[in-house]
């Protein structure tokens, strides 16, 4: 078994208000292991603790208790960060020409010419900014800034990428480009830890996902397995009245979602009504449905 590229071990973090004295628990015993070579989706509503977890992993914040490892080294180890690419949410960069800026961040990771010059060109091309390489990033749009942010995260050819909302400011074409870029990185054996609100993106590229709520992991698993609903079946039928069966009709086919215990009875009812069964499959839910269901359930449980 390969060693975990990123591991959180019973990580907790509390914020205490200076004036109010009120304590907010952002992370509550978070334990998670991201295996080398996978794309891991880290999901959760606002305030779930995703950014806090990422910042602790990068050594920008300290934990109240617990800890973890990045590429086998404890959080906060500076030399290890030369093997990591990090993109923060709402990226803030110095106002310099894009190519000089990416070079600056690469040099901070110990890179030197000619490798640095070649990588700078390569990553600016990968994020489709070659034509704007000489322009000052102070004049860039938010989407362009996010792409420069990605370029600085990729310049050192990292083994592990930690990305906090990498596509939030991008247009659909930009998102597709980033998605392809991440899949290419995965094919090269890199590990990607992706925190995102864009559930459809996560659903498309992540091998595993964890859903965080109020600092705790409420669901963790393989994306494909998570999206399948073993207790529900999806029956596609033809030649029946959708309203009578409580299904949805589209292009002459009626989609029925029933519990597995009622599957056989439903098929017989379709046949009895003179209909024809097109297919029977385990029902598949979207990540959004799971996300909403879990976060609502957790919120109502807390009450």
């Amino acid at each position, binding site marked *: 078994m390969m060693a975990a590229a990123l591991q959180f071990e019973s990580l907790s973090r509390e914020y205490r208000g200076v004036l109010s004295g009120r304590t907010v628990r952002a992370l509550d015993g978070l334990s998670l292991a991201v295996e080398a070579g996978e794309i891991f989706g880290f999901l959760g509503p606002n*305030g779930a603790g995703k950014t806090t977890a990422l910042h602790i992993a990068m050594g920008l914040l300290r934990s109240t208790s617990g800890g973890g490892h990045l590429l086998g080294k404890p959080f906060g180890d500076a030399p290890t960060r030369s093997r990591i690419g990090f993109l923060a949410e709402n990226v803030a960069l110095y106002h310099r020409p894009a190519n000089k800026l990416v070079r600056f961040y690469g040099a901070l990771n110990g890179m030197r010419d000619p490798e640095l010059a070649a990588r700078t060109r390569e990553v600016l091309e990968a994020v489709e900014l070659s034509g704007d390489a000489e322009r000052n990033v102070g004049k860039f749009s938010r989407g362009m800034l996010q792409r420069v942010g990605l370029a600085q995260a990729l310049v050192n050819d990292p083994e592990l990428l930690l990305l906090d909302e990498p596509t939030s400011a991008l247009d659909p074409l930009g998102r597709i480009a980033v998605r392809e870029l991440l899949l290419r990185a995965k094919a090269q054996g890199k590990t990607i830890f992706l925190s995102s609100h864009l559930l459809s993106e996560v659903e498309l590229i992540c091998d595993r996902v964890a859903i965080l709520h109020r600092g705790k992991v409420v669901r963790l698993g393989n994306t494909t397995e998570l999206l399948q609903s073993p207790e529900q079946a999806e029956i596609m039928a033809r030649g029946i009245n959708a309203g009578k069966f409580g299904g949805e009709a589209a292009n002459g086919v009626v989609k029925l979602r029933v519990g597995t215990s009622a599957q056989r009875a439903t098929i017989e009812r379709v046949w009895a009504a003179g209909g024809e069964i097109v297919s029977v499959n385990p029902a598949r839910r979207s990540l959004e449905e799971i996300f909403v269901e879990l976060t609502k359930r957790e919120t109502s449980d807390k009450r």
Partner: protein
Amino acid sequence: MRSVILIAGNFVREQRWVVAAWVAMAFGLAGLLAGFGDQPNAEDVEVYVSQQALYAVGLGLFLAVSAIHNERRSRRIVAVLAKSVSRSQYVAGLLLGVFACCAAHCLSLALARSWLAARMELPAGNVWISTGLVLAAAWLAATVAMFWSTFSNPLGAAIGSGALIGAPVVAAQRLGEQWMQSLPVYWLGALALAPHRQAGWEIPWAVLALAVAEALAFWMAASWIFSRRDVTAAIE
């Protein structure tokens, strides 16, 4: 070391307009002094030098108290500290950047003073050494300010730095003159401006060595504290 130089270079670049204003002020005021009458007035030049020395220390303090705060507030610190840069390297880079900014101002001051001396047909004397002492005082003041800024906001850091730098003056009045050299920002500045610098004057190597040792101690303390501080608040 390369990271330190890169951070310092970037800091100077970010502060280039402030530095340019200080340099322009040093040359501009010297130009005004030289421009009126046949020869610059000796008393005016003395006031000008004292004022510029004070501004050099002020520049070091001003840049150092706000350096970390500004980087954190703008969140630009995140991308830098997400690289292979330790907290002590980061603080050292900022301090080196502050030193370079003060050095640029002191260099312009030394050049302006040499020019004024030539206009007054006086020997340049110890202008360069005297300006070096001003730079040493400015840098020591900056390390004190950087130390305070690791755990305090700019206002608190400025007050704390002022109190610490002023403490030897108070101590000297109550406990004896030798206390003036305990944290020699004021002492070095006063020595650089003293009239006796023209004749039989020697560089105070022992006090300079003490200033360097103290600057290193403040840098190490600042690094130690800063490595135990959060650099980002929760964005969420």
